[in-house]
Structures are given as C-alpha cells and as structure tokens.
C-alpha cells in the first residue's frame, strides 16, 4: 500500500448473498480527522458496507484494513474494542438501561475496565475520561446530562439518536460509523448534530456517515463516496459529486437528458 493509506482502508471488498453481489469490489478509505459521506440510493449496499467493516458479515472476497491491521473475519466485539464504533439506522438502544448505564457499559467494555465488572462498590463513572473530557462533560455536550438517570425508552427521539453517538464514543474509538445520524430529525436538531460531528473530527476521529440529507452531507463531509448496486460510482468533494451525471443517474434512474 502507498503512503496515502487511510485509518480505514477497504480493498476489493465484496459480499455475495445468494446470487446478489450486495457489495461488489469496493475500494475506499477514511483518514483520521476526516468526515467521509457514504451516499447512494436505497439498497445500494451502504449499511451492508458498514456491517462488513464492523465484522457483522464476513466478506466473500477482499479485505478491510484498520490502522494498518487486517480486521475482516475478526469477531464484531473485538473490532469494536479495537476502535471502531457505530450507530444504527434504526435506533438500537438498550431500552431498559438509563443514559448513564449506557455510558458506563460501553466504557466498561474497554478491556482496562473488565476488572471492575464484578466490583460491588458503585463506580462513579461521571469523572471517567472520554474523547471529549469526562463522561459528565460529554453528556453535557450532547444535552443528556440532565436525563442521565432516565431509561432510554423514555427519551425523545432526538435524544435517543444522540445517546447512540454517546454510547459509541465511550468505546474511545478512532473511527466512528454513523448510519443516518439525522434520520427523523428536524433541521435545528440536524444542525446541532452536524456541529457535534465536526467537533469530533477536530478531535482527530475518522468519521464515515451514511446520509440521505444532501445539504447535511455538503455541510459536514470533507469527501463523499457514492455507491450504487454495491459498486463504487465516484468519490469527490460534496459539490463535485452533486453535479456528477453518474450520481444523478444513480438517484434518478438512467436515460435522462440533463442538458
């Protein structure tokens, strides 16, 4: 590989379900301190790609490199511990756990905390270090500190989406994968999430995000990767990609006269 190797690098990544190549020979990279948008029509293979990176699926062929190490084929929990955290398209919080319990659970998964798992003395996690200061500061930054004793199922939709990001951050990730982080949010909420994403990028995280909201993508992403039918279409700056006829074709269908 060349010196341009990213924090995350996929090489000829493919997976086949039955006769369908859901992801077909995709090469792309995410660098530290960079926000990469992954876009494409429904069914293009975006979430499948995230599932390949996080070890949920094993690729049929090709490879995934993270921080110089090949990770495809590793167990999902080991990939998560090695520094890849994610959120989900459909919110997947632990419905019966409180905000604080979500935070300490993910913190506890970092191996250094395994010893304390069977400790009875309540551990005060509020002061534990995270990527954004302490747990308390992180929860504050995400507007969740006041809700810290509430169970996840009782939170508003927007707060649930944020809690997903907080839970991911507690793993001390180097790479954050966000699957439609603003789905179902209003514009103000989306802007706040965009601010948080840029803040995280400035902390040196590599971020890969799937989004349908194009203004949001243009606003937050440094680079955009477009896929369709499992294939890589193009990569470029948000404004370039938006004008690319191949991208328009992917979204609107072929045989259109754009002149």
């Amino acid at each position, binding site marked *: 590989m060349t010196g341009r190797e990213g924090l995350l690098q996929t090489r000829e990544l493919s997976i086949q379900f039955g006769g369908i190549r859901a992801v077909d020979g995709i090469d792309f990279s995410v660098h530290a301190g960079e926000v990469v948008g992954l876009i494409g029509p429904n069914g293009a293979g975006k979430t499948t790609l995230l599932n390949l990176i*996080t070890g*949920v699926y094993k690729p049929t062929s090709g490879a995934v490199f993270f921080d110089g190490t090949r990770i495809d084929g590793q*167990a*999902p*929990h080991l990939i*998560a*511990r090695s520094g890849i*955290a*994610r959120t*989900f398209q459909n919110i*997947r*919080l*632990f*419905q*019966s*756990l409180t905000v604080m*319990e979500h935070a*300490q*659970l*993910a913190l*506890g*998964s*970092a191996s250094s905390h395994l010893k*304390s*798992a*069977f*400790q*009875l003395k309540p*551990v005060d996690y509020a002061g534990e270090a995270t990527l954004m200061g302490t747990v308390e500061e992180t929860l504050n930054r995400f507007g969740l500190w006041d809700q810290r004793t509430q169970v996840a199922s009782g939170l508003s939709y927007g707060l649930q989406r944020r809690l997903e990001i907080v*839970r*991911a951050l*507690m*793993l001390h990730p180097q790479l954050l994968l966000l699957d439609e982080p603003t789905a179902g949010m209003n514009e103000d909420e989306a802007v706040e999430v965009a601010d948080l994403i840029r803040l995280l990028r400035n902390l040196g995280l590599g971020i890969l995000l799937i989004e349908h909201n194009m203004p949001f993508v243009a606003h937050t992403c440094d680079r955009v990767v477009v896929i369709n039918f499992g294939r890589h279409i193009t990569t470029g700056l948000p404004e370039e990609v938006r004008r690319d006829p191949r991208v328009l074709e992917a979204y609107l269908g072929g045989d259109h006269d754009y002149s």
Partner: protein
Amino acid sequence: MSIYQVGLLVQVCINILLGMSVYVALSTRQLNLGAAGFMAVGAYTAAMASIAGIPISVSLLLGMLGAMVVGLLIGLPALRVSGIYLAMATFAFGLVMESVFLVLPFAGQARGLAGIPPIEPIVLFVWTAVVLSGVFLLTRTQFWFRVRSIHDDEFAASMTGLNVTTVKIAMFGLSGALAGLAGGMYAHWFVYVEPSAFSVEVSIFAALYVIFGGRQSFWGPVVGATILTLLPEFARGLDSWRPAFIGVALLVILILRPSGLIGRGTSLLTLLVRRVGRTS
C-alpha cells in the same frame, strides 16, 4: 416448626433455586425449559458422591459443578438457536436426561438410587441463603448491566465491544449450576432419587415461577416460587379442584400483570412499604 413445615420450607428452597436457574438464563433472553435435566444431573452426581462416602456439602458442590459443566456444554450449541427453538431444544434436553438416568446401569435405572445420606435442614437452608446471596450480589454488579444489554439488544451489545457469546454461555452454566444444586438438595432431603422425579413438569414449573413472579427482577423467581409452592397447601380444602384453582390464579396474574408480580426496579422492600402504606 413441625416436620411438615420444615418439609414445605425445603421445597420452597429447592423451587426458588429452580426458578433462579430459569431466571439467570432468561436474563440473556435464553428460555431454559430443561431445568429438570440439570436438576437430575446435580441430584445423581451428588447422590452417588455421598453414597461413595464424600461429605454432603462436597457432594452438593460436585452436583453443582457437574450440572454447570452440562450447562456450558448445552450453552454452546444453544447459541445457534434462539427464541422458541432454543426453548424447544432445552425442553428436549430435559426429556433426554430423564431417559438417560432410566437406562444408566450405575444410576439404579427405574429402581432409582436409595441409601443417600440425609441432609440436616439447617445445612440446606444455609446453602440456599449463601447461593441466593451470591446471585443477588451478581445482579448488583457492573456485569449485570452487560447481561441486561444482551437481553435488550444482543446485536447492539456486541457492537459496544461486549463478548455476547461468552456471557450467554456463562449464564447457561450458572443456570445449570443452580438447578444442579436444587437437585443435590432434593436427593439428600428425600434420600432417594428416581428418574420420574425430574419430569418435564418440574421444568415447566421452574419457568412458571419466573413468569408468575416476574422475569425482570431477582425477586421475581423468589416470590413466584414461594407463592406457587405454598398456594397448593393453602388450597387443600379445595380437594380435587386444586390444580384448576392454581391454573386460574396463574391466568389472573398473567392477565393483570403480564410481566409478573414484581417488575423491574421494584425491590422487595419498596413493594412491602407500598403495601403497608396502602393498608394503614
């Protein structure tokens, strides 16, 4: 206390342990309908050990360990199935164990095993108290959050770095150990075991204790097993209507409180306080 009362209390202890066996597995969304199978392993292991001259408490421990090992072995393939299929697989395991002890030549076959040294009731109560305290403390650790996260969303739990497989197998091992202890106690209390004592009915009741008492709290199986063990005694006057009466009582609870008598987060204390507050 009369012999009758002590006997009832012993039965309550055994049933609480059986309920707890189902509860710990269910905490990771694994329905164990084979508690009687693990109970049989514990009972026969402990009985044969004691007959061979090993002290009772060591025998109980051996029975527990034996059933735990079987639990871990069952837990491994059980990872490949879930939901109703897992429940059926464990149910089948229970059936298999009943027949296994019917044919094993050294286990007395249909004649059963007699001459098991009797256990002092107090020893049995202490064992129950110690083991239940251990489980209670476990539910107060950070580890239990992980168990609950698996219960709520196994996939998301693995994505937060949790080794879901290990935790699920471990909980099946614990489930086996608890039922195994119940079996060892049973063997030493009745000083005689036979395969029919570990019928599927025992497994079904173990699950009912949890469903009746509450599956989201440590106190659920404790309260469920206690009530369902004592209720038939209080309903003696009903004579042959007893099973029907208990069935109706179960249905009423399940309709009025689908998650069981005791919900999540309700401690026994707050429940009592609320009751006292209401009556005063």
